[in-house]
């Protein structure tokens, strides 16, 4: 297992080359813990917030790109950058617009309570709450960034409509403003980013789609195993139609379907491709070609005979495995440091 770290780092780089994000794009994260109301909730939202912030830094985000606004700064003065009042949240979004550049990825994650059955959908903050329209207006400042906006609060479903737009991922913990019971979605979302739990495709990174799917699955399991009636049904919207999907599909889907963009956005920072040698660049190109053929083959799965499909898939997977093996050997030969 000694060489695993070096190989993984290289693969991350290679995978970064394949993503649709512009090269050298930066990623920024704003985490907001809303008002807890009770000690237990305040502690819980703080825990989830720090898990996500720490996971982002562990995934390569410079610490200056991570901002955490909490309900009570005294809980962790070193990590909490300010109180999560409405004014501070709006100010920080404006600051993000200043700090980031066009093409950058900007993640905004809210943990807390919300409401929406009566009146506009809102996220509860110390002092004045902000409603969905206010977030939507603030996000206009980030129009040319790829924004992932996650509201993991109860009754958050009402945020989908106001915030939905092309090129933006919006995730909510519930399907409507009426689902106002305590939500556990945020905890599973934090778990998805923290460590490898959410990394379904084992590429060493967790995409927005993977995190959402992980949280959805675990929520379903939690309610089923405990014999409870499910009171939260998360949604993801990234096609701008204002209609979230409970089961977004990912890159295999047509562009008109939710999940495609979310599958390409990661909470992390890619290594710089300039570190690649000519040999590894050539391998990366080959790898990209194989991966593309695999994706094309999978799209034809329904129309192909099972044996034909498996035979072709096996051929491509063997090819990919051999390329990855070469990439790993190249990494070792280059003496990349272990992480």
């Amino acid at each position: 297992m000694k060489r695993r770290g070096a190989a993984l780092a290289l693969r991350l780089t290679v995978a970064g080359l394949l993503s649709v994000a512009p090269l050298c794009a930066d990623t920024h994260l704003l985490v907001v813990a809303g008002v807890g109301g009770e000690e237990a909730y305040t502690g819980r939202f703080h825990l989830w917030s720090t898990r996500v912030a720490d996971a982002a830094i562990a995934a390569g985000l410079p610490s200056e790109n991570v901002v955490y606004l909490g309900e009570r700064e005294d809980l962790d003065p070193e990590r909490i950058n300010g109180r999560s009042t409405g004014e501070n949240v709006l100010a920080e979004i404006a600051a993000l617009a200043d700090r980031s550049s066009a093409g950058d990825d900007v993640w905004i994650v809210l943990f807390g309570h919300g409401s929406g059955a009566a009146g506009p959908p809102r996220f509860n903050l110390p002092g004045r709450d902000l409603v969905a329209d206010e977030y939507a207006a603030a996000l206009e400042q980030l129009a040319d960034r790829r924004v992932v906006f996650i509201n993991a609060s109860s009754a958050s479903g009402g945020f989908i409509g106001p915030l939905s737009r092309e090129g933006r991922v919006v995730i909510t913990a519930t399907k409507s403003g009426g689902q106002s019971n305590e939500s556990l979605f945020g905890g599973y979302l934090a778990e998805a980013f923290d460590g490898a739990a959410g990394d379904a495709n084992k590429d060493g990174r967790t995409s927005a789609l993977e995190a959402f799917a992980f949280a959805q699955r675990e929520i379903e399991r939690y309610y089923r195993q405990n014999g409870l009636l499910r009171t939260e049904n998360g949604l993801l919207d990234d096609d701008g139609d204002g209609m979230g999907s409970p089961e977004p599909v990912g890159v295999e889907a047509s562009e008109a379907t939710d999940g495609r963009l979310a599958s390409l956005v990661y909470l992390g920072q890619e290594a710089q491709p300039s570190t690649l040698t000519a040999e590894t660049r050539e391998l990366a190109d080959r790898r990209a070609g194989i991966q593309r053929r695999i994706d094309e083959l999978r799209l034809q799965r329904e129309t192909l005979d099972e044996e034909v499909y498996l035979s072709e898939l096996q051929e491509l997977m063997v090819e990919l495995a051999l390329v990855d093996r070469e990439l790993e050997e190249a990494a070792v030969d280059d003496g990349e440091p272990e992480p």
Partner: protein
Amino acid sequence: MIRHARHGAPHWVRRRPRRLPRRTRRKAATLAARAAAGALAVALAWPAAAQEPASLDEIESMLRTGRYEDVISQLEVRSDAGETAEPRALRLSVEALIATGRYDEAVAAFEGVDAAETGLGVLRGRVALLGGDREGARQAFESARVARGGESLVASFELARLAWDEGAIGGATTGFYAMIDAYNRGVADTAEELVAVAQACQLLGRDDPELFKDALRAYDEAVALDPSWPVPRIRLGELFLEKYDSSQARAAIADVLRSNPRHPEALLAMARTMAFDGDPRAVATLDAALEVNPNLIAARVFRARLRLASERFGEAREEVEKAIQADPESLTARTVLAAVEFIEGRDEEFASVRDGILADNPRYADLFNELADASVENRLYPQARDFAAEAVRLDPKSWRGYGLLGQNQLRLGDIEAGKANLERAFSGDPYNVWIKNTLDLVDTFVEYRTVQSEHFEFHIHESEAELLAPYMVELAEEAWAVLVERYRFEPPSPVRVEVYPSHADFSVRTVGLAGLGALGVCFGPVLALDSPSARQVGHFNWGATLWHELAHTFTLLVTDAKIPRWFTEGLSVFEERRARPGWGDDVQVPFITSLRDGELLGIAELNDGFMRPKFPNQIGLSYYQASLICDWIEENYGFDAILVMLAGYREGKNTEEVFQEAMGLTLSSFDERFFEHLRERFGTAMAALGDAPGPGGEAAEDEDGSGEGGPSRAPRRNLFAGQTPDLSALEEAAKENPDDFRIQMTYGNALFAEERYAEAEAPLLRGRDLFPEFVGPGNAYTLLAEIYRELERDNEAIEALESLLQHNETAWDEHLALADLLAEAGRSEDEAAILERTLYISPFDADVHRRLAEFASAEGRFDIAVRERASLVALDPPDRADALYRLALAERDAGRAGQARRTVLRALEVAPGYDPAQELLLDLVGKGPAREGRQPGVEGP
């Protein structure tokens, strides 16, 4: 559904808005006022033996509150006082005589009276009918129709009804439509006329189901017109029950019984509703009806049906013969007699009764419908199907017949034909809840996956088929082999097994409605049961249920379904106990207290414990008792005696004959010896339970209310907790009563709750010794295990839990706790055995599968490792790629390289760059591991 219909417009067009004519409204107000005044008089001032003759208003009030004897005596007083008998007095007198079954006197009361001219012609006809005098009835109705007594409309209806009962459907139909026409012309003004309209609509509903709505509306109008007259509410209740809507039926009939708790017809209707709901008060309510009116033929017929369903054939015959004696022409009574003859296998007598009925009414499809129902109650599903087919042949508009035909085809696994017939039934009677529910369920069958094995065809919901099928197939085939050998009989295969993830769906499959308490059902070649996902973990052991139901397949089919219910149920529980430790072996406190109080049923009445329980938990007790009977027979006479009994039942012998043949015992001598055995076996527990309340007490609070297909084994409440204990008083009591189970256990539980573990041990050990089979909540074993774990006496904790699981099949937490202890003790083989048993409680715990997979791999049991890894994949884990990769490893280790290659490709579909899976693929295709440290198959945690 039918309730909703009441708000819809009737399909016929009314020519004018429906308003009560002024005259009628006044009349209604007067009646209501009279009734109210009368009720007040009764409540406040009515003397027990009035000195003065009561007024007719007062007497009418007495009639409507069920004081029939007072009505009769008061009218006699008036007569003695020389008052001239006026029509109203005669009507009151005759109605009271009818209500109390004094039909001859009712007939005599009309002597010298021109009933038709005085507006009593219809009543005269009904009295004649009650005595079986159809011709007399016809004449009376005809006279009433043409006379000036104001009864023309109702008399016309009665004449049409007579024709209907004789099979003259065409003429009757014309008469019924005339009632509708009368309503539309606004001439059906009285409550009685509206009831006649409603009944006409109800009977015409077979041609046009929209008319059922109109029947409801007319009944409602009749109720509004005369709120104190009970008949429309009773008929309304009967209509609801006919459509399987018992809650509406119960509400309508309860309204009547609130005013008149002695109304015999209302009591009968309520008894029917209760029987439909499985309410144990049905029998007592029916008895109450017959106490008021011993000659109420419909009640006798219904009682005979209940007896027949309880397999008390002699008593059923006795009852129905009484009804026939009262009315030798009664079609319903003769039909039940036909059913008794058929079920008892008296073919010639059956044919004679059947042919007699058809001679009187050649289109009486309900003869065959009733025979079908009776066959179902006696588990004769093929016969039920054939009778239903005969019903629809006789009357192509017998929607009930199509429903029965479809249901029984479904029960026998003929799904397509069953569905087609249910759709026919539904097209003719769209208000039948049973049929609608069943069709809705059948529509979902496309979501079920079919899994074939050597002797079975499983139908499991696609969402859980991948997980459940391997375990179900394995267990069912094991059970098949065991049962074939034991019963020396092989049923036709494949046996169809339907597994429902929704208990409501299982319930609909079984009884057409939601709410059944049972866990599984056997129709012979078809089984249906709850999936483990249908119930909370710890409430149900699906493995034991499947085994139980499959045992029914053997015992039903080997006897041509002639086996009594107690015996087939007893054998099924008996077989459960032989299948796995702890299955079918849950002795409840009420069983011991019933034994102590002599309340367990003797062999001759044991079926009643299943079919007509007197208290909710009696079903569960009867299952256990029946299984102990089988144990006792096997212990004393060998299993061959059981085979002799099965053969005897197949030959049509009764229980008396079968017991004599197999054991040389009469039923009473059997009861004597068996109960003696029970008293000996449970003597310590009986003594230790002291004066604990019997099954009407605590047991009544148990959740179990199951009917068919195995008792629910849901956890019950802790009998020893719930109150703030006075520990010093308990300590004193425990010292003074060392042989009192409840005191010892209450004290032990209290000390445990206070975490005084060392002190709790002694009373709990004492409680355990007094009643070792007790494994309900608060039991000694669970608490002792906890105590021993706290005190780091793990071996004793293991022993305690092992003892518990010898008697408990559903204790999920205790199974896992024991597995953990065994793991810590390094007893991995035993740990795996316990974990295997948890799979029959719930196969949804990923950790159990992972532990079993790791154990199996370590032990080289690769087939089990594959099964467990496949289960982990089926559980849709968050890390699907890894789960698939590990399954592929297990498949490779099991020598299934081809399958492993497919599985690892599935892993790579999820995660193309997952290097352990890549390396395994390369290995499987002969490219070999390239570098040190990258060999596949090194399992991590």
